[in-house]
């Protein structure tokens, strides 16, 4: 049977009334929601930033292929073109960038100072190919394949360091995931329990409703609305706190961080995303917690 609009309005009104009439119990539930969502929110911020660092570091890993020196410039050109074609034809390659030894020297001078301009007279460096793998994890195997090509003098990618880094990042992500799941589970359990206690305190109410002939959905709906309010009101403070804290943190810390890789995520999309997560979780947990708690008492009859 479809519920009449008028009845829905009644449930809406009743849920708000009952929220205020059950004052302390409502405050207890809202506080439980607030505390857990605050934790979830802060944790989400930290995790998303860590993940971003990890992505940045991973994407920055590239293979440097030093090219053999051949005295005849024409032969050199042919050899280089062949090598580039060979590297590009590998399936795991995302990007190949050529950098002449003059470019290399410029980079060196920029990074380490004018002292190196002495080498402009006789440049000891080699022409270099910068190769990026499609997946950062493929870097090692890709480097081994490139090594076998002709005219490669050396292939450098920081072997063990890179592999250790990947292992570290993956472990970090997995631990983070487990922690966030554990936190969510605790949050749901905590809130479910708080709502359950408030509903147990009102089981007489449910019993009387059933005795005067209320259908299960009639009994349940105001409680679901109430759960919705609990979740909604409970997520307000976490959303504000998370936004304010991150906004300030970002503007204080960002100018002090120089490395491109360790840059914090921009305030605007991140805060909206995290707030959306908090709000959705709050509402979901509130409604679901109420649903589960009321269901138990409705089963009695």
């Amino acid at each position, binding site marked *: 049977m479809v519920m009449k609009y*008028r*009845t829905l309005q009644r449930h809406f009104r009743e849920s708000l009334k*009952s929220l205020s009439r059950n004052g302390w119990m409502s405050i207890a539930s809202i506080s439980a929601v607030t505390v857990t969502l605050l934790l979830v929110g802060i944790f989400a911020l930290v995790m998303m930033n860590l993940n971003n660092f990890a992505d940045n570091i991973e994407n920055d890993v590239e293979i440097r292929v030093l090219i053999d020196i051949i005295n005849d410039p024409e032969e050199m050109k042919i050899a280089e073109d062949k090598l580039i074609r060979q590297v590009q034809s590998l399936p795991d390659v995302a990007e190949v960038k050529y950098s002449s030894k003059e470019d290399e020297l410029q980079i060196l001078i920029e990074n380490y100072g004018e002292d190196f301009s002495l080498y402009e007279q006789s440049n000891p460096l080699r022409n270099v190919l910068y190769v990026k793998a499609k997946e950062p994890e493929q870097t090692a195997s890709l480097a081994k394949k490139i090594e076998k090509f002709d005219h490669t003098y050396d292939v450098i990618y920081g072997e063990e360091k890179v592999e250790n880094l990947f292992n570290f990042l993956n472990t970090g992500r997995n631990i983070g995931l487990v922690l966030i799941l554990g936190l969510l589970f605790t949050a749901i359990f905590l809130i479910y329990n708080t709502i359950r206690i408030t509903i147990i305190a009102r089981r007489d109410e449910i019993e*009387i*409703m*059933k005795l*005067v*002939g209320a*259908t*299960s959905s009639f009994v349940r709906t105001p409680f679901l609305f109430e759960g919705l309010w609990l979740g909604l009101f409970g997520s307000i403070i976490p959303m504000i706190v998370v936004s304010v804290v991150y906004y300030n943190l970002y503007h204080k810390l960002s100018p002090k961080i120089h490395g491109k890789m360790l840059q914090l995520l921009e305030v605007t999309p991140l805060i909206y995303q995290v707030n959306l997560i908090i709000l959705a979780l709050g509402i979901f947990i509130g409604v679901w917690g109420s649903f589960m708690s009321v269901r138990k008492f409705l089963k009695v009859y």
Partner: protein
Amino acid sequence: MIHMKEVYKKYPNGVVAVNGISVDIKQGEFVYVVGPSGAGKSTFIKLMYREEVPTSGEVIINGVNTSKLKRKEVPHFRRQLGIVFQDFKLLPKLTVYENVAFAMEVIEEHPKVIRKRVMEVLELVGLKHKVRMFPSELSGGEQQRVSIARSIVNMPKVVIADEPTGNLDPENSWEIMRIFEEINTMGTTVVMATHNREIVNQIRKRVIAIEGGMIVRDVFGGEYGYEI
């Protein structure tokens, strides 16, 4: 109206509360159900509003066999009955008006109809001037009158009362009985389990006495018949 045939009720703990009861109650009757504590009166009453279903036998109320009701049909079945309890069972956080109106909101009645009808029944039980009060601000007798108003607001054919005067002083008990009689004269069947000897002996009606889960006496205009 109310028809029970060879009804037998055994609880999971092994207690046999009703041991083969057959009885017929017609529309418009007023029936006292009497008997010592633990005789099976409450179970007899609960069988009527389908708080319990018989282990065997038939309970037919207003033509509905309670054993055959599906769980989701129970609410609709209960709406045809008015139920009054010894402990009133009012919602403490609702006002007098809201407690009575609640029973009509449940059946999704129009708000205008609700307002009119609630004031009518509150006038009948003499509480029109206390509509805004909460149950805790009322005396026991007044609370029971609210509960009776709630039970009749949907104009049920049967009002079932389980010891409605059990918690009340004599004066309030008589007031409650006056209201039940008035309801009865309007054609509503009243079934009332009671321990109140004075009331049964003074307002003579049909008396069904239950002992050990069986009907031991069924007399029109009978006496209470037990020493207290």
